[in-house]
């Protein structure tokens, strides 16, 4: 341990910069009052996402032709080159960042203003602080390794160009997510990685099940995004209004203002600031002219008119913002009063910050596969294995954890939100691990393990141990990537077989894969020889020590217990997968898959993967070891490098979280550490006894003894089926009903109106034809008939006329006689 500590000190000194380490005593910087985040403007950060973007575009547009003309190596080299360039640029940025004083470690690269409408202002601005720097290095480094690995893995696929275009696009999106300096850019990446995940899960889209898994992933993520966006809007609403620009005051601002208008924006450190209706801020206030409002906006996004002075003379812009830095500043700097204002606000009777935190976390549950939205991740294993390693283990799924850590200053303000996050994380960790016990598909085991490990990370960020959660993110990125790629190597070696029951004994055939897998198992199960132990144990300790950071101090102990049991489970199922895969005799059918398999020439026996793949595995295994030094800690106040590195980012929440902690003594910490080691060995021993060399009959006996339980767990507790029968069925019924309503009622009404119109017209026509026209025709017909009758009289024969004349004369005589 002593030796390790020396190495740690060395790494620490390197990371700090020689002068820096001397300047800052232990924790001295933390005592200083939080000020405005200072930053350095640079002009090259855009290059980091730019390289993968170019790689993606070139491969997408001309990749097919390049591959046809010059072979696959051109497209793969292009993609790998883009990754290497991104990594080198990131390394340059890292050096730049290290060179800054500790609390000024923020590089900002403003490109352009994407859109501005009122307060809603989104800039295309990249920012790197220690947290995002760490993420960028993980993404570009592990991403580059996985690109290299993919060359071998995808060697037989005809659509190599498409695969690498998607991979590069993914890296581009992921870099946007972590480098964006505002919510909008983060959301660009947030949904962009979702898109790439969709594209890559469905990479082999000819298989409809894979396509369906892709759709499921994207739709589930959209549900999360719905929560995320609402959380963001709610926060925006809460920051509400234009504290200085009174011209366009949102209605809520007219109702809520600080109680004391005279000192409206003065320092208010004391808690419990009250809010009353403020007559001076009513909407009747005559609006300022537009020019005045416009004057406040400057190209850089700062609105000097809306800045208020801090105690130390700096300026903080308050009010609604999408920028992380501006948000951090106004919350972290006490004198703005924003923190108190936010904690005092309610939204329809609910504490606003809790609501914001929970809604944002809903986004994280989808992206980072937590209960209740974890269901897409196991299905996502339909994608090629490098994708599972890069997206569904190392980077994308950790975005939720990153987001919570990024907004630590916000989440730490609400213990309700923290409780929800930590409990969800703990529940997910245990739940997913239990499913992992019985899965036979090696990738499914790793998928549920990922869900479970993400649960651990959320325990960490939930109890306020942001650095520990983030550290677990980092260690997990290495060991889980190594495990996934190892499983990929195994799958390739076994001719696309994923069922562990048909593996076994691969140690003999794939020695390097076996060694790296073994070491990654050591890491994940928490033996103190690899990075996983240090991160997981720190999380568990912080959970135990959470105290008042959670709604109930006892909750921390419960979460610790759940995590501890889960750690036992983790060790068990990981070693189970190891022993099933690598020990015993090979159980695969010889040549069973030869027909559609280009590996037929190996005679069906497993084989080691090409060096481009195994060396990547080795590199990741080495990474699992080296990253120990970032988080090496001791109960005696030894500060881990990573904690120190992240300190400037986490400073706004640090004091708050520390003050609420339970402060258990170092003895407890040692005891818990011993307990952690004990479960790691316990899980290993159990798995070894049950699965080594496939000798024991206990697992089969147990499964046979409790068939329903076994089936139930194997079928993942039927959660998918439950969702299908409730949520999906309801939506589908709703859609059907709406469609029917539209066709029958709405369109029916239109057609009925038309029919009524036509009927009226018909009646009208009939009246016209028979009554009006009939009368006219009657008169005409009468005249005609009369004429026709009269015509008969005119016969042209003289005697007829004579008869008529005589008759007429007689009639006249008769008439005259009668009248008289």
């Amino acid at each position, binding site marked *: 341990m002593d030796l390790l500590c020396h190495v740690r000190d060395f790494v620490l000194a390197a990371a700090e910069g020689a002068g820096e380490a001397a300047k800052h005593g232990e924790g001295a910087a933390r005592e200083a009052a939080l000020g405005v985040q200072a930053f350095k403007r640079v002009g090259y950060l855009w290059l980091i996402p730019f390289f993968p973007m170019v790689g993606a575009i070139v491969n997408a547009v001309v990749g097919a032709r390049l591959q046809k003309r010059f072979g696959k190596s051109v497209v793969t080299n292009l993609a790998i080159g883009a990754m290497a360039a991104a990594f080198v640029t990131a390394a340059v940025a890292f050096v730049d960042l290290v060179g800054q004083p500790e609390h000024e470690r923020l590089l900002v690269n403003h490109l352009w203003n994407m*859109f501005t409408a009122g307060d809603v202002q989104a800039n295309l601005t990249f920012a790197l602080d220690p947290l995002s720097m760490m993420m960028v290095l993980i993404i570009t480094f592990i991403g580059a390794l996985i690109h290299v690995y993919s060359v071998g893995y995808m060697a037989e696929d005809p659509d190599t160009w498409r695969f690498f275009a998607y991979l590069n696009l993914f890296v581009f999106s992921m870099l946007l997510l972590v480098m964006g300096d505002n919510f909008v850019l983060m959301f660009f990446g947030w949904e962009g990685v979702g898109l790439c995940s969709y594209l890559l899960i469905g990479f082999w889209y*000819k298989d409809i099940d894979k396509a369906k898994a892709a759709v499921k992933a994207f739709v589930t993520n959209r549900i999360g995004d719905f929560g995320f*966006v609402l959380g963001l809007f709610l926060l925006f609403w809460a920051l509400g209004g234009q504290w200085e620009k009174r011209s366009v005051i949102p209605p809520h601002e007219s109702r809520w203002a600080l109680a004391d208008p005279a000192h409206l924006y003065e320092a208010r450190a004391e808690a419990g600031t009250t809010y009353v209706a403020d007559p001076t801020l009513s909407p009747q206030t005559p609006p300022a002219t537009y020019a005045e409002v416009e004057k406040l906006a400057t190209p850089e996004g700062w609105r000097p008119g809306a800045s208020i002075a801090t105690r130390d003379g700096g300026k903080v812009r308050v009010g609604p913002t999408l920028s992380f830095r501006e948000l951090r500043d106004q919350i972290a700097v006490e004198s703005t009063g924003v923190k108190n204002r936010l904690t005092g606000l309610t939204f329809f009777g609910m504490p606003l910050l809790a609501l914001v935190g929970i809604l944002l976390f809903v986004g994280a549950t989808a992206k980072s596969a937590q209960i209740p939205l974890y269901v897409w991740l196991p299905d996502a294993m339909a994608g090629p294995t490098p994708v599972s390693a890069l997206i569904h283990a190392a980077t994308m799924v950790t975005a939720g954890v990153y987001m919570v850590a990024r907004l630590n200053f916000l989440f730490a303000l609400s213990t309700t939100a923290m409780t929800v996050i930590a409990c969800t994380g703990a529940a997910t960790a245990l739940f997913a691990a239990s499913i992992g016990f019985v899965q036979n598909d090696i990738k499914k085991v790793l998928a549920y393990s990922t869900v479970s490990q993400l649960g651990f990370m959320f325990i960490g960020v939930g109890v306020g141990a942001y650095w520990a959660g983030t550290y677990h993110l980092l260690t997990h990125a290495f060991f889980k990537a190594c495990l996934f790629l190892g499983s990929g190597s195994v799958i390739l070696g076994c001719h696309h077989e994923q069922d562990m029951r048909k593996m076994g004994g691969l140690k003999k055939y794939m020695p390097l894969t076996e060694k790296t897998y073994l070491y990654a198992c050591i890491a994940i199960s928490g033996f103190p020889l690899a990075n996983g132990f240090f991160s997981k144990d720190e999380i568990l300790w912080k959970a135990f020590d959470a105290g008042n950071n959670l709604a109930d101090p006892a909750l921390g102990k419960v979460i610790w217990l759940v995590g501890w049991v889960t750690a036992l489970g983790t060790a068990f199922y990981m070693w189970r997968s190891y022993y099933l895969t690598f020990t015993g005799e090979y159980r695969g059918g010889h040549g069973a898959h030869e027909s559609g398999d280009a590996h037929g020439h190996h005679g069906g026996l497993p084989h080691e993967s090409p060096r481009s793949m195994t060396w990547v595995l080795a590199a990741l295994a080495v990474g699992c070891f080296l990253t120990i030094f970032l988080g090496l800690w001791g109960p005696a106040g030894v500060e881990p490098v990573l904690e120190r590195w992240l300190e400037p980012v986490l400073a706004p929440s640090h004091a708050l979280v520390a003050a609420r902690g339970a402060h258990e003594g170092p003895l407890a910490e040692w005891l818990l550490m011993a307990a952690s080691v004990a479960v790691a060995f316990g899980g290993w021993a159990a798995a070894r006894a049950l699965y080594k060399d496939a000798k024991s009959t206990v697992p089969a006996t147990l499964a046979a003894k409790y068939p329903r339980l076994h089936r139930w767990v194997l079928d993942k507790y039927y959660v998918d089926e439950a969702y299908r029968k409730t949520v999906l069925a309801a939506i589908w019924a709703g*859609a059907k009903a709406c469609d029917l309503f539209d066709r029958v009622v709405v369109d029916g009404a*239109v057609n009925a109106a038309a029919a009524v119109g036509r009927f009226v017209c018909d009646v009208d026509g009939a009246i016209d034809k028979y009554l009006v026209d009939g009368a006219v025709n009657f008169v005409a017909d009468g005249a005609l008939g009369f004429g026709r009758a009269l015509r008969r009289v005119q016969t042209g024969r003289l005697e007829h006329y004579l008869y008529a004349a005589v008759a007429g004369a007689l009639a006249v005589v008769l008439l005259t006689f009668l009248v008289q």
Partner: protein
Amino acid sequence: MTNHLLSLIVFAPAVAAMLICVSLTMPMQKAARDNLARFLALAASFIALLGGLWLWVAYDGTASGLQFTERATWIRSLGIEYSVGVDGISVSMVILSTLISFVATIASMPWWKRADEHSDPAHPHFSEVKVPGYMVMLLILQTGMSGTFASLDMFLFFVFWEVMLLPMYFLIGIWGGPRKEYAAIKFFLYTLAGSVLLLLAVIALYYKSGDPVLLARLSQLNPELFRKLLSDGTLFRGPSGAVGFHLGDGSFTPHTFDMVVLARLGQAGLFDLVGPFLAGVTFAKLMWVFMFIAFAVKVPLVPLHTWLPDAHVEAPTPISVILAGVLLKMGIYGMLRFNWAILPSATSAFAALVAAFGVVNVVYAAMVCLAQRDLKKLIAYSSVSHMGFSLLGMAAMTEAGMSGAVLNLFTHGLISPMLFLIVGVIYDRAHHREIEGFGGIAQVVPEYTAVMGLAFFASLGLPGLAGFVSEFLVLNGSFMTLPWHTALAATSAIITVAYYLWTIQRMFLGSLNPKYSHLPDLNWRERLTLYPLAALTLLFGFYPNVMLSLINADLFRLLRQVKGA
């Protein structure tokens, strides 16, 4: 040229239409006559497009107010003028209409058609039937569209509005699908019913604008404001001492059709001074409802929307493109120009109702989409859903909501034409649009699949593509005042993803339907129409400010006036 830019944009197509008519009198081969008509149509809409692009470049977004105005007296005795001009609300729409018209004209060409494309001589492709007539109608339609957006005179607006209606009727009714007569008459009657109400309102506003009793009351109630109106040129004292208005040439008229003047009068509260009718319904509110219904038919607002799916399903592809890309926008545009600008107080009173209608549009239509089997009908309903966002945004009375509402017109005007072109591509090849009738065709038409994916993802609001920005602005803006409405409307983001991705899954993914193993990919005509729109969709995804900076200033001014009412 700049002085008459708008006239050029509006009348270039009309001139070409006339030339085509003239050419019909000349002895010519049918093929030559058809080609001449095609060439003239293409040239005219290209000139209009150049005008539109010039407008985009030359329009000064920092100066608020009208630009590129032209005025000429038309009917002096009624005070009717030929008055055109653009401000932030209309400039994007004029640009959009020239762009979409050009795209639609290209899509109407028979270029690069394959031998098997129109194999059935009994049902020839619309691009081969009665070509001169088609082109004349298309050109008149273009004139009507840009004229409607550019008009500043209510009478002129109404004339263009009706001019647009007739060619649309014939284009659907003659060149449409199997149920074309039903769809055409439905479209025509529906819109006409709205137009009648609009005409009533226009005439009523015209007469009330110069009502001496009202003006006298205004001067009594608020003499200062009245003096201001007199001094800023809104009102004039006529030769007999009566108060009235000036035409562009300086002559006096007692009433006015001038939309700018009417807006100023409306914002001064003139129309609120008319006494209430029955049961407290004021004149302003009644006129507001009349105009709202007229425009709501065009939006279309649920439940006045059922003409749209029918019209789309029967219309030939370019006409669907215009219908979705431009015509639907006139509803929202008219509401902003008439209801919002002229009757702000009634707008405030009805805003909550409009927002509720917007939410119904968004969610209801999205749900209906989920149940559609016909691809074109699905796209048509998705248009209904997306237009609801504009209603919600403009009813929210926030800057972001307003910006988003108008930007949504533009972005939807880019995306929905793409969607309809995509439907046209598959319909030309397969002669049907049943979603379930395909399967796995991504394998045979990769390029088509890629463009389709871009358009679908743009429509479902993927960040980085145009649709996201407007949706985000609308939702962000409306959340500030209408959180529950917004939360409900935002659920549509999930439903939208579901129906689009499900459609992709059923049509493009999975094993290939052997019937379509030889489906040809995009040809160059289709590329010419799809790629520019796709490029613009990307541009507006990352840099929407190129349009927002033009529209924001005037919109915010309008917003303040409505909120001040």
